[in-house]
Every structure is written in C-alpha cells, then in structure tokens.
C-alpha cells in the first residue's frame, strides 16, 4: 500500500503537465554523467522493490485516481480529476489501438507499436 501511495504522490506531480510535459519532466530528471548509469552487472531498476511490484503499484495508483467515485471521496479535487482524464484520453487508454496523438496522417495507428520488424531498415 505504501508503494501505491508513493506513486500516487509522484504521479500527482507529473500528470497535470500532460503527456508531452510528463515526458519532458521525467527526461529532465535523468542524470547526465554517463558513469552514473548502471552497468550491465547491476540491476537497472534500482529500487529495492521488484519491478512487477512497482508496476502494479503504479497502475493501482492510476486506477485509484482515475476512478471518479474514489476521486470524489478521497481527494475532492476536481482539477486533478480533469488532469487525469485528459492524460488518459491523450494516451487513448480504453481504446485497443491506443491513441498516440502523434501529429501524423491518420493518427498514426498502432503499427509503430512494433519495433522489431523495422530493425534492419
């Protein structure tokens, strides 16, 4: 539960700036010195909690915040609700194809969700 609370706090910091803003904000936290990055012999995900636990906690935190009933009860913050809703819509969760919002023809559908094929081209 504490993991979910931790991520709820973190996500509350980044989601209001939207998808593009979040990518920029998170990218700005990346350390610049190459020697600060882990080598292959070290765990890449540095947190002591497992990757699966962290991912599950993040999704729980997202769901808790995007659930209108929980939101009304727990936060009472309509603006935050709107921010989450916009985030969600911008990424198209709830639509099988995802919604990239890529400013390309035809909204760029899903085929770019397929990196492997293009490797040698």
């Amino acid at each position, binding site marked *: 539960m504490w993991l979910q609370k931790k991520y709820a706090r973190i996500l509350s910091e980044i989601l209001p*700036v939207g998808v593009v803003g979040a990518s920029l904000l998170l990218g700005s936290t990346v350390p610049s010195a190459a020697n600060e990055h882990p080598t292959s012999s070290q765990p890449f995900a540095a947190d002591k909690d497992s990757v699966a636990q962290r991912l599950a906690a993040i999704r729980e935190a997202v769901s808790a915040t995007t659930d209108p009933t929980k939101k009304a009860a727990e936060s009472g913050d309509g603006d935050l609700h709107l921010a989450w809703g916009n985030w969600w819509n911008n990424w198209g969760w709830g639509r099988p194809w995802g919604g990239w919002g890529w400013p390309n023809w035809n909204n760029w559908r899903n085929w770019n969700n397929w990196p492997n094929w293009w490797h040698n081209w």
Partner: protein
Amino acid sequence: MAKRADAAGCAVPRIELLVIQPTPFCNIECRYCYLPERNSKAVVAPETLVNLFSQVFASGWLHDCVSIVWHAGEPMVLPVAFYRDAFRMIDRTKPGGLTVTHSFQTNGTLIDEAWCDFFAEERVNVGVSIDGPKRLHDRNRLTRSGRGTFDKTIRGIRLLRRREIPFHVISVLSVASMAVPSEMFDFYAEEGIERVCFNVEESEGDHVSQSFADGEVDAAYYRFLSEFWRLSSAMPGKIKFIREIEHALQQVIRPKDAPFNNQLVEPFAITSMDWAGNISTFSPELLGLKNAQYGDFLLGNINRDALVEMPQRLNFVRMTKDIQAGVAMCRERCEYFSVCGGGEPVNKLAENGSFVSTETTYCRVTKMRATDLVLNALERVPPSSSGRTEPSLPLGMPAHARDQPARSG
C-alpha cells in the same frame, strides 16, 4: 486482442495490421539485412492483391480499422501508379465504415516530387530508415557497389520536410552509434527530424548481430536512451517523439484494467503476405524464414487457399501452441510481463532456438531497459513544496507542452 467467439466457441481472429510485400527487391544492400530474396525483382500480381483483400474483407476478422504496411523489400522501387491502382482497388472493395491506413517504410533514396504528391494525396504514413549522421549511416547502409547511401537518403528526408510531409525515422543502433547519443541528437536536431524510433541491430535469419553478441548491449542501450531522453528534455521542441520512451511511458503509467495486447503473439492480429501470396502471422519476419523444427511458417497461399481455413492448418496449430506456451512461461517468470505481453516469437526462435522460451536480448533491450529508465525517472521526481503544486518543468519547456489544465495550488 479482443477476442470474439464463433458459433463453435472458437476465438475469432482480429486482423489489426496487414503487412504486404509488394516486391522482395531492395535497391540497396545493407550489411545487416536478413531478407533472403532482396535481389529478386518479383512483383505481387494485381490479382493476388484482389484475392487478399476480397478474402480479408469477407473474413469477419476486421474491426473498424486496419493498417496496411507496404514493406519487406523497398516499396518505392515500384512505380507510384502501382500503388494508386492498389489503393483504388482497396477503396472500391472495402466494407463501408472500415478505416484503412497505409504506411511505407522506405530507405528514402527514391523519394522525389511525384512520391511526395502521392504521400500527400493518399495520406501515407512514411517512415524513413536512416542510421544517424553520414559516418555512422554509411557504415552499414550501402549500395550494391559498396558506396554509402546517406546522401540520397538525406536528400529524400529534406524533400519530405520541404513538402511538409509528416514522417518519422527509424535508426538501427550499432555499438558505435550507441556510444554517441549526443552526436545522434545533434544530427536529428540539425536536420529537423522530430520523430525518432530506435532499433538495436539484431540477430535474425542469417544475420548475426555484432551488437547483440556484445554482452553489454543492454547497458549501452540504457545509457544511450537515457542520455538521448535527457538531451531532448533539455532542448524541448527539437525531438518531439521518441518511440521507445513514449511506449514505455504508455505501458508503465496506465490504469490496472487498461486493455493491453501483444499483437505479435495474437493469431492473425498481424497478417503478412509475400509477393507470391503466401500468408503468415505472428512476427512478420517469419514469412521468409525456414527452420529445422517447423520447416517454414507459411499457412497457405491466398491465390489457392481460404484465409478463414488457415487457423485449422496443422503448422498454425503447432506454432500457436508453442508461442502460447512461451507466453505462459513469460507470464509466470518475467517481472516485465505486464509491459510486454510475452515477447517477440521470432526473436525467441532466433536467440533461444524455440518459441517455448522466455527472455531474449531483444526483450532486455526493447522492453526491460526502457521500462527501467521510466521507473528510475519516476523515482527521481522531487516532491513539490506543498505536495500538490505545479511541478517544476524543464527549463525552456514550451507552452504547448502544457496540454493539461493547471491545478489550483
């Protein structure tokens, strides 16, 4: 894949992506290319395309949209008229209400004004393969006489920009390019390339990747991607889309019940056809591969066989069983399963020798390290002073990036 069931209770496939090989021929000879027939100048017959689309449209396997990718050879070695005819045939025969999108992945060397007219008129999604600045690109992307192709490719990209045709680039990363993220970033920025996708040179088919042979490849990739992301954030507006970061963000930060599927392990979600009409599914690379255990991965030929009967083929049943067994192993063993959905069958086969297997270098590079990068970035987000105030944004972040309403503090 959202599955429906037929009268017998069997899952009905849903085709989301059609990969069509209009010709196996390519006008260049990249060092890392694995396509076995790239010297063949065979061309798909119009009747084969008619047979494909008449069967696909009648299959009941489509939802409301389908993407068509013209690839597996250089699509632009064929004339524009070929595609105009093909697109009109598809428009004439497609069911009402179905949205069809077309995409080209090209080496960019043949882009001219006529192609730009076509891309604009038909709203084709264009991906150009370029591996970075000339000194890196020309190491691997060569003509048959061994000369570099950079000058022709960048000329095509500049024409796309001048004509305001939206495009993205895909860059194959080598050990050399992963060592110089700043040089790569500067190249894209100087050329006005705003949307980038990275693939690490892989071992597939007959090609053995030097990058994958290097045990440090995922560490090198992590360093490259993190530095590239940092640079993009420090200079907002230059690079507007890094596929690997956007995908990782999308997969990590999502509601717990958000729909998620891995097309590569869903039968017929990706359906591939070669120039001769042979059909395959799962990883599109399987279309041209042969294997001691499976023979080939062809499910039939669209000119002779019924598409809707292909799921009953013994090789399909066997392949599906093995791929699903591999996915089950991933689900059971891998911490990253929820961002991946069971990996990439062709890489499991190439790297591990079996579909019934789990982790590959491809997994580590494309899924795990990008996920780690996002998870680690999340950990570094500092709490704002009030805990619920406007977050600190990168210096120079443009106003348009603020695409959400600000909260009251």
